[in-house]
């Protein structure tokens, strides 16, 4: 079907700046074709950010893959779709409706589109994908899979993807399975040929090779976390499968199988335990941490809820452990396959009683790697749990990132651990004695010395020698010392990233909100609103966060949750006054957009001006 008779469409003219969205049925093999599409653009040197919008399901439900292409490097989501690949009959009406005026819809025209789906101001690109597949391929599975590859081939002609880049990617993908290469390339050619013959190619929406991704990598955050665990020296991983954290442990195990097998003996320098639940997962990590191994678990909101009691134990008995929270939408089961920053409060103060936990907030795969490796040092240095707060958006979607790097000669900082000789010289060992005045006591690994250095680890109240006590004053002393430890921790935590140019307004945010900030600032500048920014990288907050807020007339605190949790934390921890901060919130499960931020700031400025 072509555009409705008589309607003259003013199609979009855009180079390296548009949004392509694929509407598929999950389990139909579209994921690898769509990844091929995104990666080819990346290899053409054009910044690209793909977002999987997938169901909590194995087969048959709608799934989308949205690709933002932006030579300027805007990597957040943008509202509206310029080119829709409408492959799912269940959602096609809504998918067509989401296309902007002047945009395009590519669809499988083997079956005619019902008349009511026609829309003015949208250009339809009909390709009989099923028919082509049925003619060209014998096996039913191939007929299904290659539909996806054919539309990628058609897109190559339509928007000018470098065909050599595509064939290069196919060769890379099937290295070791070479016989799969020719049919895939054939499928690409089928699509390319059809599009070239039937449409004016390229469209006015097109790509042009650039040099904006030269040194970069395209990686998902969970892979980077897994690698960070390998490099950071983790030997024990215990976990319970939970979307969207599962791929953290998958990546750790995959790289360990490659990099952590003793060459002589074939033995493993790691252990991965799939626990019976999240309680056991964190318990195993804590047991290993107590005994001197670097250990971690990865989970998401529901797992955090289950781990609360153990986190309190690790806090109070001062055991290093690293926890990855790949946040998803809560409360309860919530939306398991959508993103949110909804666990800030439940992690900052996890467990009953007075507790506090160190949180790290990476915003790119490079930071996922760096913060993960550092998390193991920090946990050892401060002797407490460290929670790395990622989210589904960062964890499961491929992101453009600076390449990962490991400083040669970097050593692990195991913190204050006494060895045999140090114990030998010591007159008295008190596990919870603040010998250095920084709140951090010395610990030992079990079995270090024949008769010195052993102690009783417990979650019940204890004195400086780890002996049980019900003396309230001694209990309070220990609690005060632990509080002091968190002041010391600031010296070990990454400082916020501050970009200031003397503006009256500040934007304060963390994690994946970062992807929308540069674009939001540019949008605001167009409206004459200048902004400074502060990106929080860790909790507890550094004093520089407070002074940034004090230096600005108004600071917008951007939260991807309903209850403005980051703002609450600032108020609790830094005594920030309500009049200094204003909340911008987004909590529909999708990554926050620059439009949302700039619109919110402008609305609030207007209201203030009235």
């Amino acid at each position: 079907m072509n555009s409705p008779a008589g309607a003259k469409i003013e199609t979009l003219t855009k180079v390296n700046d548009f949004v392509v969205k694929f509407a598929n049925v999950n389990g139909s093999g579209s994921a690898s074709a769509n990844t091929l599409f995104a990666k080819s653009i990346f290899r053409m040197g054009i910044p690209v950010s793909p977002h999987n919008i997938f169901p909590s399901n194995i087969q048959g439900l709608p799934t989308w893959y949205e690709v933002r292409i932006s030579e300027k490097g805007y990597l957040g989501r943008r509202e509206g779709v310029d080119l829709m690949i409408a492959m799912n009959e269940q959602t096609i009406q809504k998918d067509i409706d989401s296309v902007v005026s002047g945009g395009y819809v590519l669809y499988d025209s083997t079956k005619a589109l019902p008349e009511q789906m026609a829309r003015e101001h949208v250009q339809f690109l009909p390709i009989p994908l099923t028919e082509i597949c049925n003619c060209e391929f014998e096996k039913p599975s191939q007929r299904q899979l290659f539909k996806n590859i054919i539309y990628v081939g058609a897109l190559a002609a339509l928007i000018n993807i470098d065909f050599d880049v595509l064939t290069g990617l196919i060769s890379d993908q099937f290295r070791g399975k070479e016989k799969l290469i020719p049919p895939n390339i054939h499928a690409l050619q089928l699509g390319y040929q059809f599009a070239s013959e039937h449409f004016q190619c390229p469209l006015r929406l097109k790509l042009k090779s650039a040099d904006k991704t030269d040194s970069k990598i395209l990686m998902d955050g969970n892979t980077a976390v897994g690698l960070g665990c390998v490099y950071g020296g983790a030997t024990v991983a215990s976990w319970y499968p939970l979307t969207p954290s599962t791929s953290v442990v998958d990546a750790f195990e995959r790289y360990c199988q490659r990099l952590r097998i003793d060459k002589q003996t074939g033995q493993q320098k790691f252990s991965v335990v799939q626990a019976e639940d999240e309680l056991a997962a964190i318990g195993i990590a804590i047991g290993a941490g107590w005994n001197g191994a670097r250990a971690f678990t990865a989970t998401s909101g529901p797992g955090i809820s289950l781990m609360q009691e153990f986190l309190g134990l690790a806090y109070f008995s001062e055991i290093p452990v690293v926890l990855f929270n790949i946040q998803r939408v809560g409360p309860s089961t919530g939306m398991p396959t959508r993103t949110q920053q909804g666990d800030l409060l439940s992690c900052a103060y996890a467990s009953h009683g007075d507790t506090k936990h160190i949180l790290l907030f990476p915003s790119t795969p490079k930071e996922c790697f760096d913060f993960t490796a550092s998390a193991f040092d920090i946990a050892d240095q401060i002797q407490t749990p460290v929670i790395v707060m990622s989210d589904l958006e960062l964890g499961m979607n491929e992101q453009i990132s600076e390449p990962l790097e490991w400083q040669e000669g970097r050593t692990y900082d195991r913190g204050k651990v006494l060895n045999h000789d140090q114990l030998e010289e010591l007159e008295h060992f008190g596990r919870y004695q603040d010998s250095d005045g920084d709140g951090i006591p010395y610990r030992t690994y079990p079995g270090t010395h024949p008769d010195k250095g052993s102690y009783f680890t417990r979650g019940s109240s204890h004195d400086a020698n780890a002996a049980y006590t019900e003396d309230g004053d001694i209990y309070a002393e220990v609690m005060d010392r632990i509080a002091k430890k968190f002041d010391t921790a600031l010296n070990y935590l990454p400082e916020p990233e501050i970009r200031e140019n003397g503006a009256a307004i500040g934007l304060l945010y963390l994690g994946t909100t970062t992807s929308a900030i540069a674009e939001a600032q540019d949008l605001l500048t167009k409206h004459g609103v200048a902004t400074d920014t502060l990106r929080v990288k860790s909790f507890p907050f550094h004093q520089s966060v407070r002074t940034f807020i004090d230096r600005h007339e108004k600071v917008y605190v951007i939260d991807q949750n309903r209850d403005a949790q980051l703002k609450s934390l600032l108020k609790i921890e830094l005594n920030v006054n309500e009049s200094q901060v204003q909340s911008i919130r987004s909590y529909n499960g999708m990554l926050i957009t620059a439009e949302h931020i700039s619109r919110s700031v402008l609305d609030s400025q207007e209201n203030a001006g009235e």
Partner: protein
Amino acid sequence: MTYIRKPSFQHPQLETNELGLTRRDYEGTLTTLCGGCGHDSISAAIIQAAAEMSLEPNRIAKLSGIGCSSKIPSYFLGKAHAFNAVHGRMPSVATGANLANKELYYLGISGDGDSASIGLGQFCHIVRRRINMLYIVANNGTYGLTKGQLSATADLGSKTKSGEESLYDNIDLASLAIELGASFVARSFSGDKKQLVPLIQAGLSHKGFAFIDVVSPCVTFNNTDLSTHGYKNTWENNAALSQVDFVPMREEITTRYAEGEEKDITLHDGSVIHLHKIGNNYDPFHKEKAMMHINQHKAEGRIATGLLYINQKTSDLHDLTNTVDRPFNVLGEQELSPGNSTLMEINEAFR
């Protein structure tokens, strides 16, 4: 809690073991449990077992959960490292500790509330994972610290001091352990040190998951004539299937018993269990027979004790996952970090 300091004074001619240590070196702080508590006898049995075996106290990690049972690691092996975890979760902590350092002895102490109720899941899974440790449950059928509620190991019809009757079938942790793959399963009675001490020694020497269910009466809340976990019932109905002697690997085996009535079981470290069969010619090498005996005894209102099941040719989690010989906790960046050039190659795969 402990307000009386334990006197450090000791008899000058106290016997020493191979390490030159006396029994006192294996003791802990003064107990705070009720006078006559079965758990104190378990502590005493552990002290005797470890001292006789000449174990280095600092090579032992004691782990426990929450409850009266889980307090007892304070009362023995004061020079060992201890971890008093959260209620019912000692198994996961023990698993992690064991993964971090395979070279220590791991001794888990739990109770029936800790292992059969709140921690039943963790108990099942540590058995399945074959952690190399000795796991002792001090089983009194009641929640002592919260003043006498029935626990899940209380037998159907058993009554507590307050007259509360168990309306439900009990969970038998020994049967469960056998079912789930434990390779050493025993039951004993805190009052029968002669039986318990060698079982503890054998359990510590056994490689793989060793479990001892110790009936350990709660004198305060569950020691009535109507309680199946009280002293009276346990004494009267204790049916030892076998008697065990433990011979550490260093000692020469000197005693010999009449052919047919005893069997030597050699453990992985070379220690030997002398098993004297009693009465029914009990054979502890068959899972199904062990389960049958336990159930038969139960049906008769008796408690089958002794070494119920053993498979000394078994593997532990480290074997199953083929971990390196050196403990994880001594590996440093040299062994663990693959270096920057490898990372550069990895980056390439993401371009």
